[in-house]
């Protein structure tokens, strides 16, 4: 290897000078087009410090990284906000050697953040995966992307090749797998089931993947963005990480902002940042806004009157019954009909059931039908009781979180847009019902502009 070749070895953790704590963090060095090559990535962040795990398990340095992630308070960015260090402890402490799975499926129709990381910053993601693997003593990393994400797949494949070419001897085996693109395929147990040769459908848990996952080995499944944060914490430490964000949700997050906004796209925010600052960063709204769906199609609606006061952190959003989920911020314009939009989303969510659990298969279908009748003004007088009953028959009765997640946007829409639903129940479809749908679904994805524009920052 020539002296100038990029290398991942020989860090100087003590000598690493943390960059300013400000934004951008993850998106540092991102380019308008194409991926950051290994050399460019190293120029931005420097080499990944040696973790010292890998083939030799249970080293002190490895335990130190997990402790650092715990101190950083990193929560998963796939939607559930589960403490990352807790999963890592479980895999590191298991008897068998672990495997790391990078969950890059991003089934959320209104989310583009993971795709942005794969396409533009593949080495940051791989650094995080390598650091996580070394920390938990795993010798194998599987990046699992959605089969339709052609640009991201190409970008990761090239990045893996670049690393092999750079002759790093420390890295665990890196490989790429592609999985089907349906909504529940990204659920942890579904992903593990698929990698074990089964269908990409959730399984009955426990055992959880971190106990018994790919090839029966303890498996750390982490979202793409979560691992990108790990790559930075491994370099700059917990104290640096906590300089942004809130005490219970430290650090930054990528959010996908879409709807009637001048510059829709992926933005990096500090947890706790105001929604208005994000909208300003997006160039402002281009229409009056009726509400915002936060967290995506497992998330909840917040009505227009509250939007000015919204802070983008889970502790704040909990009071509104919402969460940041996978970082989706979807604005709905005043002209759109929230009833018609909700009906379409409810029908789509019913169709995304893996069709394994009766209450999910029948319950979500019945709920979508009830909402269709309501929107058409042909539901009976006791429609509210019917919705309540269906919700109680759906909640907590599936093997995975899909049925519960699906209830969130539907029930919160019924609450936030009460007047609109009542109006439809009495008078049937409104003028807005015949307008083209606004909320993105796979058959009507986010606009080209959203996917093309590279992030700015608030």
């Amino acid at each position: 290897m020539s002296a100038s070749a990029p290398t991942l070895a020989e860090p100087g953790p003590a000598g690493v000078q943390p960059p300013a704590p400000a934004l951008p963090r993850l998106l540092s060095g991102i380019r308008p087009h194409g991926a950051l090559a290994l050399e460019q990535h190293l120029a931005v962040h420097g080499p990944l410090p040696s973790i010292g795990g890998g083939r030799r398990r249970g080293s002190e340095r490895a335990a130190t990284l997990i402790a650092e992630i715990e101190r950083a308070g990193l929560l998963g960015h796939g939607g559930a906000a589960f403490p990352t260090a807790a999963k890592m402890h479980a895999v590191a402490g298991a008897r068998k050697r672990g495997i790391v799975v990078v969950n890059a499926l991003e089934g959320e129709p209104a989310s583009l953040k993971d795709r942005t990381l794969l396409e533009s910053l593949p080495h940051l993601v791989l650094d995080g995966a390598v650091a996580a693997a070394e920390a938990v003593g795993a010798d194998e990393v599987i990046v699992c992307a959605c089969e339709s994400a052609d640009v991201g797949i190409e970008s990761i494949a090239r990045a893996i090749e670049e690393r092999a070419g750079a002759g790093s001897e420390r890295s665990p085996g890196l490989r790429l797998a592609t999985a089907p693109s349906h909504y529940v395929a990204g659920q942890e147990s579904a992903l593990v089931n698929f990698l074990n040769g089964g269908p990409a459908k959730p399984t009955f848990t426990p055992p959880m993947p971190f106990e018994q996952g790919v090839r029966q080995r303890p498996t750390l499944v982490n979202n793409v963005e979560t691992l990108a944060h790990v790559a930075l914490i491994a370099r700059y430490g917990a104290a640096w990480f906590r300089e942004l964000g809130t005490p219970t949700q430290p650090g930054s997050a990528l959010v996908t902002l879409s709807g009637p906004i001048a510059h829709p796209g992926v933005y990096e925010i500090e947890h706790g940042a105001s929604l208005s600052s994000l909208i300003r960063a997006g160039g402002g709204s281009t229409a009056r806004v009726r509400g915002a769906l936060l967290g995506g199609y497992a998330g909840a609606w917040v009505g227009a009157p509250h939007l000015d006061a919204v802070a983008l952190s889970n502790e704040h959003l909990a009071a509104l019954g919402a969460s940041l989920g996978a970082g989706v911020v979807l604005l709905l314009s005043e002209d759109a009909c929230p009833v018609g939009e909700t009906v379409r989303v409810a029908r789509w969510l019913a169709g995304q059931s893996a069709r394994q659990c009766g209450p999910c298969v029948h319950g979500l279908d019945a709920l979508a039908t009830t909402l269709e009748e309501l929107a058409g003004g042909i539901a009976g007088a006791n429609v509210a009781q019917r919705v309540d009953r269906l919700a109680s028959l759906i909640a907590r009765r599936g093997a995975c979180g899909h049925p519960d997640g699906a209830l969130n946007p539907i029930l919160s829409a019924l609450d936030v847009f009460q007047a609109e639903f009542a109006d439809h129940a009495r008078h049937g479809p409104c003028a807005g019902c015949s307008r083209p749908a606004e909320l993105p679904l796979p058959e009507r994805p986010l606009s080209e502009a959203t996917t093309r524009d590279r992030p700015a920052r608030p």
Partner: protein
Amino acid sequence: MSHRVRVNPIACEAHGMCAELLPERITLDEWGYPVVDGTPLHGAQVEHALRAARACPTFALLVERERKRERARS
């Protein structure tokens, strides 16, 4: 040590045997799937629950010993 009943919703095919054999804990929803009261079983209920679990054609009814501590869930 306490026991609870739980359903594996993937395995369950709504045969409804459990509701026949353990009506004190299980009712059926409008599609025939069990709605389970998962609070701890008392006395003879444990025996009834085990009988119901054995009778399930798809082995979807589980009688679980309560875990010492809640497992981490993701």
